[in-house]
């Protein structure tokens, strides 16, 4: 079974530029998560989707961050414009559904460096 797929693996951009990350969850997983992991810290949840619906986006900086999961499968996280403080690893995770405490499976992440 294929795991969570993310692309790109690495991205270097200049500040004020836009950037987008893509995630394809494990087949059949209805719940999708985006986490941000700053250097030397644990991941922090940005947004959680149940199918197409964003059910928890309280930690998403909405002035510059946006996300979508139009068909309830893959998802895109966008930053526009990027700031120096956005340098981090962006992790995508998925789980079977949101009805119980399901194990979250993580992708390899996208390492973003903003210069």
């Amino acid at each position: 079974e294929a795991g969570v797929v993310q692309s790109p693996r690495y991205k270097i951009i200049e500040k004020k530029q836009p950037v987008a990350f893509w995630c394809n969850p494990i087949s059949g997983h209805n719940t999708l998560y985006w986490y941000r992991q700053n250097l030397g810290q644990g991941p922090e949840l940005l947004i959680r989707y149940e199918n197409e619906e964003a059910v928890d986006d309280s930690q998403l900086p909405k002035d510059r961050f946006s996300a979508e999961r139009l068909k309830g499968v893959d998802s895109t996280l966008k930053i526009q414009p990027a700031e120096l403080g956005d340098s981090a690893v962006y992790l995508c995770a998925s789980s079977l559904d949101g009805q119980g405490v399901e194990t979250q499976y993580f992708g390899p992440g996208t390492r973003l460096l903003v210069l």
Partner: protein
Amino acid sequence: AQTVTQSQPEMSVQEAETVTLSCTYDTSENNYYLFWYKQPPSRQMILVIRQEAYKQQNATENRFSVNFQKAAKSFSLKISDSQLGDTAMYFCAFMNDQGAQKLVFGQGTRLTINP
């Protein structure tokens, strides 16, 4: 809000030794779930073990076991017969059972297994 604290930023042991990683958490809830995740240098976060707070028996997965002390809000991970492949960042994480599906991570412990 729940918090998770890992007081050991780094640990190093010899191969085949036993090592224990510490984790404490703060919550006012009675029912919740605790996890240990492993993040090797490749960055793919992998679930090592999970514990339901309502279960008194400590969880065990092969060489990995936990010491769950609910009253003390402590959740340590013991790795027996450590192997070189155990070298990784280890994150302790908390999730309530209120349906939020939100993992709250500690800062992580960098574990190095030396040959």
